[in-house]
């Protein structure tokens, strides 16, 4: 216990090293996908391998999941509130892009630094602005959805979020005639959203390398926000609520306000991710926003390590890769080699279910745990005295 006199690493401030590491990793990815993959001298074997195991679209999609999972982590990992309806924010963010960056409102003609010719019908607002709009619209809805749940016990709260997570996508799904208005094109979806203007160029649906950079940047913004908030006044209040809600309120932490803020900040990330995803798939499709997505995101947070930003990134990357590409690529390879016809893609349910169950049973702190959570989640397992005796970091 004597080491406690030294500031442990997890409480030191302004640890900026991650930015360097992150930039290097990002630059590497960018290099691979923007240059290496387009280089004519690249051996065909490597080209095929990359395209088979980690095609550009899959990397970008994983990054969108990273953004989302970081948002969910604020709600689940920091504040300890189980949100089973996070997909609602994905949908709202997506439709923000659909509404403000396409020809959906064909009867209008509003342009604001958009990346389309001035005569195009519809609302065309600049991507970066739409990101912010999407973020704030989601934050608003996050608080709105959160508000009625605040007085509820944790498991009821999970249900209410789940309820909203079902209602909101259903509204979009049936949105072709929502009290007489078409708000979403229903099942047809909103196809084709505007390119992303980055000054020298407009990024269309197939500019994977450049969009990779943009998604990397958005994820970095979320990492930055998460880390800073975690170490500030608000982050401490979230953690205190996660630890002991009642004691927190007795120590002057306004529960409602603090929880609402966690919903709002978490939902903000959902908005960013939703807008990013819309540009990634070049459209908004109602049937994509289903309950499974909420659980996928939860599994990502759980697998990586609730509360730890790096763990969550790892979890999101691994699981979204497996879900999007890895499993089917592996299945194709396996079937090819052994002449079988197993539908590997259908194993995602098994995989995500097992991840949730096994992690909770055997490694509740996740793959890359936040040091403190490791202890709280094994509360029942360790004897108090034993824990304090062993402890030396």
């Amino acid at each position, binding site marked *: 216990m004597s080491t406690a006199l030294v500031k442990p690493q997890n409480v030191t401030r302004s640890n900026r090293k991650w930015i360097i590491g992150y930039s290097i990793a990002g630059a590497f990815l960018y290099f691979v996908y923007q240059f290496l993959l387009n280089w004519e001298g690249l051996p065909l074997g490597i080209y095929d391998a990359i395209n088979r195991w980690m095609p550009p679209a899959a990397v970008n999609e994983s990054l969108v999941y990273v953004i989302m999972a970081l948002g969910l982590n604020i709600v689940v990992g920091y504040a300890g509130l189980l949100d089973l309806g996070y997909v609602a924010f994905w949908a709202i963010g997506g439709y923000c892009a659909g509404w403000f960056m396409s020809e959906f409102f064909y009867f209008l003609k509003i342009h604001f630094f958009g990346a389309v010719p001035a005569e195009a019908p519809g609302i065309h607002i600049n991507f970066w602005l739409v990101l912010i709009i999407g973020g704030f619209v989601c934050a608003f809805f996050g608080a709105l959805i959160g508000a009625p749940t605040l007085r509820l016990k944790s498991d009821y709260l999970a249900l209410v979020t789940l309820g909203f997570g079902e209602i909101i996508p259903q509204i979009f799904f049936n949105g072709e005639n929502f009290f007489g208005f078409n708000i979403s094109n229903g099942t047809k979806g909103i196809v084709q959203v505007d390119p992303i203007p980055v000054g020298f160029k407009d990024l269309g649906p197939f500019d994977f390398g450049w969009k990779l950079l943009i998604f990397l940047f958005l994820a970095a913004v979320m990492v930055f926000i998460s880390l800073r*908030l975690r170490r500030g006044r608000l982050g401490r209040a979230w953690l205190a609520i996660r630890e002991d809600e009642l004691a927190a309120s007795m120590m002057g932490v306004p529960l409602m306000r603090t929880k609402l803020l966690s919903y709002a900040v978490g939902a903000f990330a959902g908005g960013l991710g939703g807008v990013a995803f819309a540009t990634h798939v070049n459209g908004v499709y109602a049937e994509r926003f289903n309950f499974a997505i909420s659980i996928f995101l939860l599994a990502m947070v759980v697998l990586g390590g609730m509360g730890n930003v790096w763990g969550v990134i790892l979890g999101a990357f691994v699981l979204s890769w497996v879900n999007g590409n890895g499993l089917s690529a592996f299945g194709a390879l396996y079937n090819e080699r052994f002449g079988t016809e197993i539908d590997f893609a259908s194993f995602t349910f098994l995989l995500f279910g097992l991840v949730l169950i096994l992690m909770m049973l055997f490694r509740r702190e996740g793959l890359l745990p936040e040091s403190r959570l490791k202890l709280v989640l094994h509360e029942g397992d360790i004897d108090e005295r034993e824990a304090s005796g062993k402890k030396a970091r």
Partner: protein
Amino acid sequence: MSNVLEAKNISVAFGGLLAVNSVDFDIPKRKIVSLIGPNGAGKTTLFNVLTGLYKPSVGTISYEGKDITDLPPHKIASIGIARTFQNIRLFGLMTAQENLLVAMHSKLKSGITSTILRTPKQRREESEAEDKAQYLLDYVGVGKWTYEFARNLSYGDQRRLEVARALALDPKVLLLDEPTAGMNPQETGVFIDFVRRLVSEKDISVMLIEHDMKVVMSVSERITVLDQGEKIAEGTSDQIKSNARVIEAYLGRAKEGRA
């Protein structure tokens, strides 16, 4: 006005059960008063009412002349009524320092944007808060555990940390719920001296729930006795010692009372 806190005619009902029945009491400025009574007498319930966790069915509570009956718990805490818990409720996996910083939540101003941008003002505020936390940790005698997780502290230190956390609220009234439970006589002695020092050095009034009669008799300016939710006696330790109803409440059901 000599009373910092006054509770009038407090009743608390849970369903049909009356946990506290028409109790009046007050806490004088810079004094130590005690609340005693057999188990289930309603002592902790009364604390929960004072801190806003339960709302009284009947009755009013005023603090420094203001009615605070309907304030939510966090407001009550931030205007200066702090408490500790019978079974320690620290934020176990936050450091000792963070525990105190949580209690300063209402005093700190920085919002989301200033925290994300880490403005000079926010940084100054944080470092001031940390200094204050360190001062309080030193003051209660757990200064060397600043960066240790609260749950790793020894039992006595956890009790002390809980008091430090309560003090971080800058309270005028400190409610201690069985603070010496689980302490040996020597630790108890040290703790009691500490509470005395607190009252004399800081502008604080203390209300104590305690089972250890020796502690109660030696430290309290005034003792209130509850039994089955009703106030059965109030007075100095000598008056209480000789009060027939108190003796009956304790001895008459000696099996229930731990004292």
